[in-house]
């Protein structure tokens, strides 16, 4: 069964939009509740992915904010960014994270990724590969954060080793991030070394048709969009309906009601 995942870019205080990995502030938690009815949005998706964009390590304040956010979410929550230690991971799991996402650490600190997989299981670890096209159409991978960004050729990366401890893989297009132009599906053929993975693809989704069309691709298990403005209101529900109409298998669920729980 395929999935639609809503991404939230969050620094612990405010939520952001991203365009080619450049951030634009949207507002704080109350703003998100008021303007985006985040808990209604969450009832339209299979998962939530929270990207910690503060460019620092995870702080107790961030964990507290995550816990506040998680209070009203009854879908899985993945969290990535700023995880520097097993203690950071413990803190995020305690705050409500179900899975953790790693990009830079896959190369820079695989020991930490392994430690977390050993403690929480491989299913609790997601690898993220942020890729873009060079001018001569090579695939480059970007990792690190502001001031410490590293760019490498995809072909130079030890992909098998990098992904040895992860359960799933996100392929995120930097070129299309926030563009609303759709995910570059043709790029997927460049990741054949990783073709045994269930891919989550991210970057570029700007309409419900983009989502449903990509979900039709047999290589893609899930679509992740952080483009809140493109899917405000019932946009994600429309994406869901559109995908179902095209024959994509997606979960169906009910809203909770104490009147319909049928306890004997």
């Amino acid at each position, binding site marked *: 069964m395929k999935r639609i995942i809503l991404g939230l870019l969050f620094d612990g205080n405010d939520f952001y939009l991203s365009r080619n990995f450049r951030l634009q502030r949207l507002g704080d938690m109350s703003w998100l509740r008021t303007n985006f009815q985040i808990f209604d949005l969450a009832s339209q998706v299979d998962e939530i992915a929270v990207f910690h964009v503060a460019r620092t390590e995870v702080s107790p304040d961030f964990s507290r904010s995550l816990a506040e956010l998680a209070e009203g979410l009854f*879908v899985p929550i993945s969290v990535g960014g700023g995880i520097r230690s097993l203690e950071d991971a413990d803190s995020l799991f305690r705050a409500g994270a179900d899975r953790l996402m790693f990009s830079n650490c896959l190369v820079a600190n695989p020991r930490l990724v392994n430690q977390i997989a050993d403690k929480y299981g491989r299913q609790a670890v997601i690898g993220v590969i942020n890729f873009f096209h060079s001018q001569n159409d090579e695939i480059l991978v970007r990792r690190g954060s502001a001031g410490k960004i590293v760019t490498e050729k995809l072909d130079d990366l030890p992909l098998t080793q990098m992904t040895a401890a992860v359960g799933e893989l996100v392929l995120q297009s930097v070129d299309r991030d926030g563009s609303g132009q759709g995910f570059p599906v043709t790029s997927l053929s460049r990741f054949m070394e990783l073709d045994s993975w269930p891919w989550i693809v991210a970057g570029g989704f700007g309409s419900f048709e983009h989502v449903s069309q990509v979900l039709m691709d047999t290589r893609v298990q899930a679509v992740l969009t952080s483009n809140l403005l493109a899917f405000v209101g019932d946009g994600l529900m429309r994406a869901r309906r559109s995908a179902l109409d095209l024959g994509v298998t997606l979960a169906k669920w009910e809203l909770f009601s104490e009147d319909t729980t049928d306890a004997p």
Partner: protein
Amino acid sequence: MTEWMALGYLNSFLTRKMAALGVADYGVGNMRSVANALNKIGAEWELVNDPLKVPQYSRLLLPGVGAFGPAAMRLGETGLGKALVLAAQAGTPLMGICLGMQLLGRTSEESPSTQGLALLEASTVRLPPHHSVTNTGFRKVQVVAAFRRPNSSTLVCDYYFNHGYHFVPEDVSVVAAATQWAEVEIVSAVSRDNVMGVQFHPEKSQGQGLAVLDRFARSGHLLL
């Protein structure tokens, strides 16, 4: 068990609060998600990390996100494992969630040197090789008739899974629900008398998952 522990248990049973649900907090995994879900359904519940307090509860939940070995060790170190076994043997409904269900069995390939609670004759084994190394996402759960919720028009419901190992009971009569994953059918829920478990995460399965927890909190039964 020491004498003081035995006296503690006796006293705990005598002062038992019949309505409360105890959630085993053994320091591993994501207790908050279960807590949020129980708050949402309005359950009367408490985290329990003191084994002497386990008998006070009329229902018990054993959540689990993590690897089998560290979780089983924590259950042993804290004394919660033994307390849960005694409570289950005394008839208290006990439900394991995901890793919590796997811990109800004896062993796991994930951590061969550690033992589970052995409340069910079962072992946990790695998912067979497939396109994916984990079973992640919503899956259709085929429910055995006896565990079907009243007024349900279907025996199939979608619940959220995230695991790399699966539960294999020796006695198939304990199977309450099954799920097709790749080419194999995996056990997605088990129940024997007052001991039950779900491989999926009801606390992460939108409204129908909350309803599973609500029915367990209210009745002590597994109804999917």
